[in-house]
């Protein structure tokens, strides 16, 4: 049975790769519960004290709030800017779609470190709050995610006819869009928002360099902790990992629940 053999081999390969990828995370999780672990095969004892220490720490709470603020703002701005454009090119202007597609891959070809150099040079002496520049920059970085998730969602129905009928019935374009289009694409919108949220929540390069570490987000706080308190930062890493797991679980749930037809394509962009 050749076919079975190759299936078993395939499973083995995937398991090995997953084990490799997960090993450091598992080590960190164990470390976060251990008292000390220096010259022994297993940690000397288990404890919750590091969790208590972190979760009651004000710096930690503030850093989470800052990251949340950044993530929510970016998600909103990216939806407001990208959704109308993606809707419009899909429904009315397929010629423009080709050009848009090229623009949407640009964030991939330009690493954050190069982007932030340009942003720093341009905005260093302009009196705009840097946080606004930061939110716009992360919005730009999230463009491929939003585009790939939302683009394919417009293939399913004749949205042009639906949209125009709503307009004929006397609603304005924004109202028509919200009433007729939005309910049909809500799972794609949710996935797109979740991915943008995760990107912004974990952003480091631009946040750290543009604001010079003054805006202490979760990742920056994590880096600072890493320099001093190993146990506390293993707790933080575990929390961050759990957050990613939760986001992924929600994504898997939505994709299964709505039998999401775009899931083959948006992943190409991640």
């Amino acid at each position, binding site marked *: 049975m050749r076919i079975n053999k*190759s299936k078993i*081999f*395939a*499973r083995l*390969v*995937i398991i090995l*790769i*997953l084990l490799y*990828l997960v*090993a*450091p*995370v598992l*080590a*960190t999780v*164990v*470390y976060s519960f251990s008292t000390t*672990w220096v*010259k*022994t*095969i297993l940690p000397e004892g288990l404890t919750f004290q590091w969790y208590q220490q972190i979760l009651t720490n004000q710096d930690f709470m503030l850093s989470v709030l800052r990251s949340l603020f950044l993530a929510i703002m970016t998600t909103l701005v990216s939806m407001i*800017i*990208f959704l*109308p*454009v993606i809707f*419009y090119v899909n429904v009315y202007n397929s010629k423009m779609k080709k050009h848009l597609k090229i623009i949407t891959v*640009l964030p991939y*070809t*330009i*690493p954050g*470190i*190069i*982007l932030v*150099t*340009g*942003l*720093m*040079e*341009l905005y260093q002496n302009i009196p705009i709050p840097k946080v606004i*520049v930061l939110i716009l*920059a992360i*919005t*730009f970085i999230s463009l491929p995610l939003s585009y790939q998730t939302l683009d394919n969602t417009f293939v399913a129905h004749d949205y042009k006819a639906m949209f125009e009928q709503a307009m004929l019935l006397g609603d304005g374009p924004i109202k028509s869009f919200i009433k007729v289009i939005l309910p049909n694409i809500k799972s794609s919108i949710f996935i797109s928002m979740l991915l943008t949220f995760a990107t912004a929540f974990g952003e*480091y*390069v631009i946040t750290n*360099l543009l604001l*010079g570490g003054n805006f202490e987000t979760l*990742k920056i706080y994590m*880096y600072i902790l*890493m320099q001093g308190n190993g146990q506390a930062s293993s707790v933080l*890493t575990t929390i961050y990992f759990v957050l990613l*797991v939760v986001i*992924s679980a929600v*994504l*898997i749930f939505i994709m*299964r629940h709505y039998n999401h037809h775009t*899931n083959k*394509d948006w*992943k*190409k962009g*991640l």
Partner: protein
Amino acid sequence: MKNKLKIYLPFSLLILLILVMPLIVMVLASFQSINHPGFNLDNYRQIISNGYYHNAFINSFKIAIYSSVISMVVAIIGAWALTQLADSTKNILITIFNMSSSFAGVPLSFSLIILFGNAGMFKAITTALHLNDTFNVYSLSGLVTAYTFFEIPLGIMFLFPVFNGIDNEWHQASNVLGASKNFYIRNVVLPFILPNLVQVLILLFANAMGAYETAYALTSNTVVSVPTLIGYCINGEINPNIPLACAFATIFALIMWVMVTVGNLVIKRHKGGIR
């Protein structure tokens, strides 16, 4: 017409303010030195004449080559294995790979330090067993290892759609026509996937070359690379020098642009050769 403007304007402004203008200003600023006013090549001269800076470029190149090639090999096997599984499992696994590729940077570096660092688990276990542990995570090879943790899942995610596109009927067709398995792989599968493989490899290479967060968090004191150097030029505690950062970033962007262009040319030529 008015609606059209309303839709395109915010988007165009975003691209202009966050991408186009900063890049133009960056290139222009790279020709201005903090010591001499006016247009000059001081920054570039400095980069070309300084051995420390050469090292940064060489290191970045090495890290990118090693990590992208290693990850590519694993990702090819992984993406193939993924195509053999049931559809629902595929979807879950891809989301998991996506998640592990976003675990890059500070948390990844920290996890690796816990695993392999000076006070890490590996050290603890090897010390307890009186073994000799020679792997140094704060080195170039440590960085290459670190990069495989996000480059492998990234590679699998990019390669999976390609491998999934190989139609099983092709195999049957070539079988029916009497072709051997070797012939099928060499003349049917390879021409189809090779251009994509080159593209993904370039992508992984560029991604590794531009990665800042992991390099900064793991080896900023031990291994000098171009992204960390740019970071120091931007907000170094001693003397920030943004024009120099601009020159570095310009050269860096140019190298990547050349890589991508050459890669695309190779792909085009290859495709042309088949027809």
